[in-house]
């Protein structure tokens, strides 16, 4: 049955995201908060995370582009991104933010630029994967199955 196949695909994909370190237990917490009374919770939080992250990444780009780089501001932005990625379980983004903050402390612009690239890369990766996961969930529900979340 199509639903069964989709469920299996979801299950395997979901597991791989944890095995490869993209997601951690906090994402499971979010899943536990979704139920019939709030069936869109995960997609809503994840969407907020995407918006928030894109805003922060833009702010970081601009901040590092200044003549006089304000490292405290950069640190504040990275701290925020670290927080939100941690709250949804986006482990690799969070870890990239931790590394970034260390270089902020050192006031090393070149290293910060590289860190920003790294964070952006990790963000884009997890975004793609989460979108795929959520799409699978959508397909399952559309095919009449129960949400695997």
């Amino acid at each position, binding site marked *: 049955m199509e639903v069964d196949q989709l469920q299996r695909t979801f299950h395997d994909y979901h597991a791989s995201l944890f095995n490869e370190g993209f997601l951690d*237990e906090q994402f499971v917490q979010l899943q536990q908060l979704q139920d019939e009374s709030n069936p869109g919770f995960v997609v809503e939080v994840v969407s907020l995370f995407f918006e*928030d992250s894109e805003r922060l990444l833009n702010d970081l780009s601009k901040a590092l582009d200044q003549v006089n780089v304000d490292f405290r501001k950069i640190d504040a932005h990275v701290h925020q991104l670290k*927080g939100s990625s941690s709250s949804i379980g986006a482990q690799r983004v969070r870890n990239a933010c931790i590394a970034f903050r260390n270089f902020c402390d050192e006031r090393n612009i070149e290293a910060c630029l590289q860190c920003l690239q790294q964070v952006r890369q990790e963000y884009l990766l997890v975004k793609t994967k989460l979108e795929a996961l959520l799409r699978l969930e959508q397909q399952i529900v559309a095919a009449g199955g129960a949400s695997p979340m």
Partner: protein
Amino acid sequence: MAKNGVFSRLRRLEKSEETEDFSACLDSNEVHVLAVDDSLVDRKVIERLLKITACKVTAVDSGRSALQFLGLDEEKTSVGFDGLKVDLIITDYCMPGMTGYELLKKIKGSSTFREIPVVIMSSENVLARIDRCLEEGAEDFIVKPVKLSDVKRLKNYMFGEGRVQRQDRGLNKRKLQETCDVSASPSPPSSPSPDDALSSPSPPSGSSPYSPRSFFSSPSDNPSLLNLHFD
């Protein structure tokens, strides 16, 4: 009292296998929590965590907004205060403008609101920061990211069970919660709710051997835990 309604709602809320005594929650539909966090994502999560534990939630994005809601802001008279009493305030520590610590001080400095339990949340597990907050009167300190088990534990404060232990406040708070990460942990004798303190189902964190969510057992029991640094 609509007992049937309460029980069916509570059955829906049970997401984990742990059995908990919900008899203290019969008036849970009246519990109102004011959540303060500048992060949109975190506000969304904490709001859901609180709602799923049968709390009414008002979520604001700053200490200033929180004070305005309570009617404590010097410059503005309360806009949102509709007579709905606040049973608990849960606030992030790091916020632009007014920090959670400053908000805590303002609340504890107010004769009207100082009795409201305040819980601090922070991503930084810094003992000095935790101590400072507890000394200023915070009821508890939760290390982010916040989990369902953290919020479930907070219900004790809202139903006065935590208050009864007020004379033991220092003892209860300056404790490290032993999650299932740390095996063979002895039960802390003066914990307000022994079931809650130990039955947290949170799975072991992959990144570190210990994941203290809050503070329940005496650090002198486990000196190695004093030097934990998560980041």
